[in-house]
């Protein structure tokens, strides 16, 4: 291998600042997309298990649609195709005038895509809590909404904490897809540094370490939370 090593590059101006800023964008995309994915996914998960056939159908269609198209293609659909179906005014706003058009599009696309996966997790959690718990809740006169609020969801979230952690980490990794529409997040930045300095090896290594560190930190953190929230008498399953 014929390569000029220069690890110092990572700590030199402006590259250090670039990397930190890019990590910031990665985290911003991940957290905002997660907010969408978690709230919409939970709602869809409730729909998917509800007693109303129409709600179940809506959630099923959503899940099938969003998980059978590659995320990258979905990002392109939101970025290039969706604005064309709006009125001129709105189209201009989405393409140019809204704050951070590319970043916002990436957040929405990743959020909506991941919502379909969160929905399936929430559904499996509610299924795991069981039909009998639902009946027990109904039997003391609670409405369906109350049964979800006080019985099914608190238990379901506890059960699916490990897979939900994985879903968040999936978002964290998938945030790199934002680079395809020009968002300079962590992965894109390594590419940019490579092009500026030809020290690609160092930049890729740095990004790799950062991604791994964040992932392992989040997993360790969630394992602690999993232990803390475990009910007395039940054993903790640990993050997967």
């Amino acid at each position: 291998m014929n390569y000029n090593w220069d690890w110092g590059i990572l700590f030199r101006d402006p590259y250090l600042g670039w990397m930190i800023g890019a990590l910031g964008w990665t985290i911003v995309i991940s957290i905002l997309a997660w907010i969408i994915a978690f709230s919409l996914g939970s709602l869809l998960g409730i729909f998917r298990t509800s007693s109303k056939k129409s709600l179940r159908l809506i959630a099923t269609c959503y899940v099938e649609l969003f998980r059978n198209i590659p995320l990258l293609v979905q990002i392109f659909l939101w970025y290039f195709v969706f604005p064309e179906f709006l009125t001129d005014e709105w189209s201009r706003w989405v393409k140019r005038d809204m704050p951070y058009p590319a970043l916002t599009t990436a957040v929405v696309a990743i959020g909506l895509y991941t919502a379909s996966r969160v929905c399936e997790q929430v559904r499996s959690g509610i299924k795991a809590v069981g039909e009998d718990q639902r009946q027990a809740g109904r039997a003391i006169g609670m409405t369906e909404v109350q049964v979800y609020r006080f019985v099914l969801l608190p238990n379901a979230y506890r059960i699916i904490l490990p897979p939900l952690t994985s879903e968040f980490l999936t978002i964290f990794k998938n945030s790199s897809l934002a680079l395809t529409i020009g968002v300079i997040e962590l992965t894109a930045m390594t590419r940019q540094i490579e092009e500026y300095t030809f020290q690609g090896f160092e930049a890729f290594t740095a990004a790799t370490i950062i991604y791994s560190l964040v992932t392992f930190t989040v997993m360790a953190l969630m394992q602690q939370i999993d232990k803390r929230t475990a009910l007395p008498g039940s054993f903790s399953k640990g993050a997967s």
Partner: protein
Amino acid sequence: MNYEKSNMMIKVKSVNKWYGKIQVLNDCSLNVSKGEVIVVCGPSGSGKSSLIKTINGLEPVNSGEIIVSGISVTDKSTNLDQMRSKIGMVFQNFELFPHMNVTENIKLGQTKVLRRTNEEAEQKAQALLERVDLTEHAHKYPSQLSGGQQQRVAIARGLAMEPMAMLFDEPTSALDPEMINEVLDVMVKLAKEGMTMMVVTHEMGFARKVADRVVFMDYGKIIEDAPSQDFFGSPRSDRAQEFLSKVLNH
């Protein structure tokens, strides 16, 4: 609405129910008067659990009518939530809410459905725990209790709603033998206090002691519905005789 018989608590009229192609209830009719204790028995798969769950509308029926205290359960316009709060139900696997301690389990329906204040609910919970002899376990979680204790909490949870009737769906069949009696004792006490009860069970000792009538089901049909002395004296159907000889001979 039909109030002509004021002491009629539960009236089941020609109820049919299918799961897909399988008929689980076949033209079932049954009356329970206020203060009566009815034991429903029969081989597994005979439809007893389905029958009891249709009474508070947990399981829908395909045809027929069910009236509880003058209110039609099978009428689509009935507010089932409100009606269910007036009928207690005890499940085979207890179904306490695992994320709440014993007291919280008993308080949930009181505060969220009956809109009682926290203090009222708390007092009621304590009184009921005393009644089922579990005061010292008030702050434990379900998973820290034995099956028998859990089932007694479940009964207390049902009673907290001050129900006009209690439904029991095989309340002792998931219990270890040594715990069955502590649960049955609570139920006997309840029966003697005049609670209207419908109990799906194989505990024929319990049936003998407190049941006013015994209903025997097989293949989704009510085969016998007789005062308990008559049922235990001389069941009319062969199926019931065969069933009795099986459950009594051990």
